[in-house]
């Protein structure tokens, strides 16, 4: 990685620079929540930026050890409120694997639909906020506007707009209301041209590219070693998506691509940058929104097929039949699923009672902050903001 310091002129004789500690956050709009950075600077150049976390710690893991498996579902919403459906999904998968529950087809379809719509709305915030951090305000408003449509759909299906608590262990809480599939299809048709417009508005902007290209470069090997996940890993050119490579639910029946970063490739989307820079992480998310729209359309078609089944068919149910008091066998499990911020893993230890012994939640933003100090070394202060935005760090997920 070329350091900014390499390009700086040698200090003139007799003029000394002194290091200064700058406390960035915890209440700073660009740190995306209550994140504090201890930045040691030498002039404008960052010597080290150490993240200081824990301001939003709510002991969710410990709460999980004191209540039973079903009661924990609303807490998973709060682990990452920008993609509550996906957090629900990861937890439900983990408990179902531990308890050996089979989920009916219709529930799987509704789950994938919810997860992909939520992925779109989460990426809208990330992309918009990154553009806003770089000084462009309009894309954020566009993103919020599209996200509102997703929230309306979710309000219709489960009544909530942010923390949905929609997925349950063994299925989903409610079946699709009348007209829901039509509205999802309309939304997919609406969003595709809007995303093309969004892409033209910001992705090709040369000022925006200058701010992100060659900033915060993470190589392929570093990304794997640091445990980066999701779009951050794919931005570094690693083609790894759990939906494709370790398919869970019904993802193996869907057709979609896995976009990866292609910085430096003259035919790619980032010819001016380097592989694994902030722009690569940005453009991977833009492409993922298009892939999610494709999935939503396919799931709509599958739901229509499913509608034709008789009502008493087991594939037509939205909930598996389960005992009121759920008991799981003694054992442990680590299950992960692909969330907008990378894979979310639930490690659950059960001792055969109705409460887990240990519940560990592994999230994408936590490992993104792990390598933050190394990635931002030698950058300018303004570029630190670009790196936070391109890693898509959400603080409740870090602190849990």
């Amino acid at each position: 990685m070329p350091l900014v310091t390499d390009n700086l002129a040698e200090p003139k004789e007799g003029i000394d620079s002194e290091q200064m500690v700058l406390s960035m956050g915890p209440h700073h709009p660009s740190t995306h929540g209550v994140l504090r950075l201890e930045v040691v600077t030498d002039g404008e150049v960052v010597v080290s930026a150490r993240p200081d976390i824990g301001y939003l710690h709510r002991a969710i893991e410990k709460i999980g050890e004191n209540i039973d498996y079903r009661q924990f579902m609303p807490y998973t919403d709060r682990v990452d409120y920008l993609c509550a459906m996906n957090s629900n999904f990861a937890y439900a998968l983990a408990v179902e694997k531990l308890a050996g529950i089979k989920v009916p087809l219709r529930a799987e379809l509704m789950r994938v639909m919810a997860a992909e719509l939520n992925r779109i709305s989460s990426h809208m915030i990330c992309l918009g906020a990154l553009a806003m951090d770089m000084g462009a305000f309009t894309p954020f408003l566009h993103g919020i506007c599209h996200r509102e449509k997703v929230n309306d759909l979710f309000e219709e299906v489960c009544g909530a707009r942010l923390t949905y608590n929609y997925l349950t262990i063994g299925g989903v809480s409610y079946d699709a209301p009348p007209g829901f599939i039509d509205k999802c299809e309309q939304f997919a048709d609406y969003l595709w041209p809007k995303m093309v417009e969004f892409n033209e508005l910001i992705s090709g902007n040369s000022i925006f590219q200058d701010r992100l290209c060659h900033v915060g470069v993470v190589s392929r090997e570093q990304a794997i070693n640091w445990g980066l996940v999701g779009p951050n890993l794919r931005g570094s050119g690693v083609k790894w998506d759990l939906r494709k490579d370790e398919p869970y639910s019904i993802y193996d029946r869907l057709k979609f691509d896995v976009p990866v970063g292609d910085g430096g490739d003259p035919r790619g989307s980032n010819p001016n940058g380097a592989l694994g820079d902030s722009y690569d992480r940005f453009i991977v998310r833009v492409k993922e929104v298009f892939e999610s729209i494709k999935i939503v359309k396919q799931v709509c078609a599958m739901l229509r097929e499913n509608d034709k089944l008789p009502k008493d068919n087991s594939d037509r149910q939205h909930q598996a039949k389960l005992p009121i008091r759920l008991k799981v066998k003694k054992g442990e499990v680590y299950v992960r699923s692909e969330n907008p911020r990378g894979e979310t893993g639930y490690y659950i230890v059960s001792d055969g009672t109705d409460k887990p012994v240990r519940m560990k939640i592994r999230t994408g933003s936590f490992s993104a902050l792990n390598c933050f100090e190394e990635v931002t070394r030698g950058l300018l202060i303004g570029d630190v903001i670009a790196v936070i935005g391109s890693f898509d760090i959400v603080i409740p997920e870090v602190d849990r």
Partner: protein
Amino acid sequence: MDFDAIYHRTKTRFPALEAPPLEAGERICVLPSAEAHAVLKFLKEDPELHFDSLMTLAGADTGKEFWVVYPLHSMTHRHRFLCKVVLPRDNPECDSVVDLWAGANFFEREAFDLYGIKFRNHPDLRRIINPPDWEGWPGRKDYQFPREYHGIETEREDQFFQEQINRETKARELAARRVSEGKV
């Protein structure tokens, strides 16, 4: 490779490995705590296994002993392997794996913060989620929540549910005492 193949390949090098039978969930391999680092190094560097990615690192308290769990994954061979180290309740200590996977840094700090597990050779073992002057290890089963912190009272009289709160607090304290006396 599946669990059995990976397990047998590693067992020929390190005979002290164990894989307890399974009731539910996923097979997990128990590493001897003395040579845990050597086994993990073998798992990472052996070309047939090549576990280049540490999915997570979790500390755990079962009430009797501590665990450090290493779910491993290989990007090149696309297989996974769960292993754990069992540590005694008094003075839990094990070797850090930051030299193998840089991603372990924050996870080990978290395990230290919540369970008080000391990781030898860790570059920067500090509290991460709790404030630096916090007392006790909040993840442990026998942890007692402090009554005050820097002059801030953590308990308040509840207008409606005080009796219920008292009952629950008493039950929690009893459970924690039983764990610390080793009766669970």
